[in-house]
């Protein structure tokens, strides 16, 4: 089930999949060191990861892989 109101809500800061993918590794390292700083420096990526299922799945996988190390 999809929440209609939430689903239709878009964030103008959202950078899209292209830029999010391009910077995902940079964002991931920064997020591990300091999540708030990552969000502050890359608000558009945070906005994208909140809205895009596939990119947030990749991000979660990346974080999981780094925790495994």
């Amino acid at each position, binding site marked *: 089930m999809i929440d209609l*109101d939430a689903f239709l809500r878009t964030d103008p800061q959202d950078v899209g999949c292209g830029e999010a993918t391009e910077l995902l*590794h940079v964002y991931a*390292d920064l997020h591990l060191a300091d999540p708030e700083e990552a969000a502050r420096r890359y608000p558009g990526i945070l906005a994208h990861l909140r809205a895009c299922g596939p990119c947030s799945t990749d991000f979660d996988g990346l974080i999981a892989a780094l925790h495994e190390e």
Partner: protein
Amino acid sequence: MPLDEISARWVADLQATGAVREDAHARLHDLLLRAARAEVGRRSGRVRLSGVELDDLAYQAAADAMLAVLGKLAGFRGESRFTTWAYKFVMLEVSAKIGRHFWTRKPTLPLDEADWERIPARFGLSSENEAEWRELMDAFRHSMEHELNERQRLIFKAIVLDGVPLDTLCVELSTNRNAIYKNLYDARRKLRAALVAKGHLSEDAS
């Protein structure tokens, strides 16, 4: 940005010659394969694949991630640790391969009556209180038909109504994630603006 010591060692070894290079390639492959297997395992609940198929997918993802890393190595500037950068390609390859696995049939337009009737349920609206949401859904349909272009309508239908994974839609429509996301984003924005204008949704963040 200067590379950290471990990352610099990876890059130097992978670009070396002879035994050093071969050893680095083997270590990188092990690293990527381990990550690919873990990632495929993490996602296995969402994909209907057998153990053998999952392992095969992990091998392919690791091999293609290896090619991507080696191909782009000269452009690696150390904005992250080397391993973080390398793992990213594993994630992208696992996503692409799982997306391809779901390959079904090309989505089509227009939406028929049965499609329209499935929409309320997708948004958790039950027929019991239809009186409460009938007007909203009528407005929703009108907006879909009049505010969206064909491409946006097609993508909205495939993802929202048919639940086609975005990475699968990339394969079916021969495009990339960014282009589909942009279409979906614009569709979401237009539909919301239309529903707000008609008083069916409120402007403020809830």
